């Protein structure tokens, strides 16, 4: 094991080209994260075409740089101008901006930077420790369990994607349908090709993704004539000197908040679809609740900066755990990385870490290293950011649209891919306008083939359909899917209703059953704890209800 880690480390850290690409990726990520209207996912998507000519580790290391850089880039614009660069840095502005306005911009940036760094480091350690274990667990999965896991991933994406669950489900189903078009994986029979040889090959993942996400986003960005012609940011910021030493001391002093927020980030990242945009607000909220100086929050509290920044960088580690261990992307960024691996003919799954240990550990090491690049490049990226923000959006959008076309063409060297990108760009644009969330559709496209393949394998192995509910893991994921479907109703229900009071404890009781069926001592202990805690809460809440 140790020699594999050393080899993987050498392939990343001793190769000047990989290091250079990663530095470039981190810089691009810092900029993409800092510019409002650009997201980390967009940065990673636009980087992908450049990685075709690279080795898998170089490509993934570059994208890792963009990912980590993007998560930290959002804090620059959020703190200096009050406009968060990405949704994952929304909560950073709550205290970061007031601290800057109170005359401490260097300290505010330093706190954000070092919280991101330490949050990322904690999640990197958990990633290295947990991903191989989770992958080992994943080896227990049969096709029934895998299919149920994909169903769970899709349902939770839908339930977390917004107010309108029906539209989320429709988006997910449209994604699954798009993945059906072309020759099927099992029999090689053409489906929905309508006589076209190009459609018979199916839609390549990348053009669909760039179209749905990047193309449609760019169109939305230039929609407003006045905004499109104005510089990216109306407010300007002055270059500042980051107070590193003071910031490090403060972050370490508030280590409890740092660790709590990092773990919130990791947990949120592990959940499919729940990314940095959720974790930063959750961590901020928890930090505020735990603080002795709650009144300071919103006025430039140190804890108010540490919590969201540590959480959003830690989310990346959590999302990578799922992707590396089970081949299930946690968010759009990891979905793109999954696509990048597929382009290099590497199929992530439970056996990925065992089959491709050099690549897997290389990714872990790249994740570590990207955080050092992020710290080192922050000052330079701040100067670049101030330059880029003077460019009007319509200039950036026009150039990037052309770049998308070139990048998509580079995938298979066929013009049809650009047509696919255009078609899905139009679809994505109107879906945005009509209130359909795009994340479920993108995950539907990514997971569609995998879902069908596992369903076919399950049916091909046995005609006993009850295996979907008698196998413990499959039952566990189906129950989790049901819980995630009901979750939005729980969120919207009044606190006094029976449903709202009993939803969590009954979910705990129900989820304990498949864990009992797994017949492993550790899982049975977890099941017993869930059952006892759930029963206790049901009893307590029923007693309160009867009393009132």
């Amino acid at each position, binding site marked *: 094991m140790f020699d594999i880690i050393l080899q993987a480390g050498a392939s990343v850290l001793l190769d000047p080209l990989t290091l250079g690409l990663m530095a470039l990726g981190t810089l691009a990520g810092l900029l993409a994260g800092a510019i409002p209207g650009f997201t980390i996912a967009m940065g990673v998507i636009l980087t992908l075409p450049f990685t075709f000519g690279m080795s898998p580790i170089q490509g993934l290391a570059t994208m890792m740089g963009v990912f980590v850089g993007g998560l930290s880039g959002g804090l620059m614009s959020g703190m200096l101008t009050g406009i968060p660069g990405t949704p994952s840095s929304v909560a950073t502005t709550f205290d970061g901006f007031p601290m800057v306005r109170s005359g401490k911009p260097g300290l505010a940036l330093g706190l954000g930077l070092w919280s991101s760094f330490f949050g990322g480091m904690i999640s990197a350690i958990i990633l290295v420790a947990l991903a191989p274990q989770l992958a080992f667990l994943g080896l227990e999965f049969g096709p029934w369990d895998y299919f149920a896991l994909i169903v769970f991933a899709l349902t939770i994406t839908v339930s977390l994607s917004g107010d309108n669950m029906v539209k989320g489900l429709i988006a997910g189903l449209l994604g699954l349908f798009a993945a059906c078009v072309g020759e099927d994986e099992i029999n090689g029979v053409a489906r929905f090709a309508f006589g076209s040889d190009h459609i018979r090959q199916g839609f390549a993942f990348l053009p669909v993704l760039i179209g749905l996400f990047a193309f449609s986003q760019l169109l939305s960005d230039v929609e407003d*004539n006045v905004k499109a012609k104005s510089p990216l940011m109306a407010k300007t910021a002055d270059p500042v000197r980051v107070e590193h030493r003071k910031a490090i001391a403060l972050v370490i002093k508030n280590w409890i908040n740092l660790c709590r927020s990092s773990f919130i980030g990791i947990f949120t990242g592990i959940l499919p679809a729940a990314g940095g945009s959720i974790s930063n607000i959750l961590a901020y909220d928890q930090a505020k609740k735990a603080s002795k100086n709650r009144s300071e929050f919103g006025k430039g509290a140190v804890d108010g900066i540490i919590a969201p920044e540590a959480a959003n960088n830690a989310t990346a580690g959590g999302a990578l755990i799922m992707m590396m261990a089970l081949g299930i992307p946690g968010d759009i960024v990891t979905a793109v990385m999954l696509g990048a691996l597929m382009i290099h003919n590497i199929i992530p799954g439970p056996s990925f870490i065992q089959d491709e240990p050099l690549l897997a550990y290389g990714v872990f090491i790249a994740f570590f290293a990207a955080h050092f690049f992020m710290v080192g490049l922050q000052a330079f990226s701040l100067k670049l950011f101030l330059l880029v923000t003077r460019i009007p959006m319509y200039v950036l959008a026009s150039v990037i649209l052309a770049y998308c076309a070139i990048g998509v063409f580079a995938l298979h060297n066929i013009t049809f891919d650009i047509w696919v990108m255009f078609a899905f760009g139009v679809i994505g644009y109107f879906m945005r306008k009509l209130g359909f969330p795009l994340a479920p559709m993108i995950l539907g496209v990514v997971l569609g083939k995998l879902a069908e393949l596992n369903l076919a394998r399950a049916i091909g192995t046995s005609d006993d359909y009850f295996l979907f509910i008698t196998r413990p893991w499959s039952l566990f994921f189906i129950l989790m899917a049901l819980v995630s479907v009901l979750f939005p109703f729980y969120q919207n229900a009044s606190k006094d209703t029976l449903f709202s009071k009993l939803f969590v404890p009954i979910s705990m009781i129900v989820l304990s059953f498949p864990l009992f069926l797994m017949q492993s001592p550790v899982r049975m202990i977890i099941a017993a704890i869930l059952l006892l805690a759930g029963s206790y809460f049901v009893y307590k809440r029923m007693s309160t209800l009867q009393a009132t």
Partner: protein
Amino acid sequence: MTSNKSDIIIAIFLLCFSGIMINDASNIRDLGFEGMKADAWPRVVLWLLVVMSSVMLGKSYIQLKTEGHKDNNTFQVNFSKFKNAFICFGMFLFFLSTLDYLGMLLGGIAFVFGLLTFLGGFSLNLIIKHLTISVLSIGFMWMVFTFGLRVMLPEGEILRVW
């Protein structure tokens, strides 16, 4: 926020789309092998789409009935709002249609220049600025992909003849 009327139209469109695709699914060949047929999974997905679209239709219709008086005049598509998006669609369509003739280099420059000018304005200063941006940006990307990444971008008939 979208209006209930537009949701009804979208739901009906999705139902029609699902219907056409379910009908086309009957053309998927059955090779006669054991196990799951090639049309089974798409059918499941499409029928679920029918169910969800029906739910959306019903929900929007009920909401329209209850909130109808507020919603009566909201379904007026403001085309000027989408003007820039339609310009992008049109320019991209033109770029794609002429790709075989102009190639990626000339076509790309024409696309970026056209889009910049339509979105940014037509004054002489801006036109010079847009031309410079389009030549430099596309020229740079073309060089990166052609010489750096060894991708054979479409040359175009014009450059080939020339």
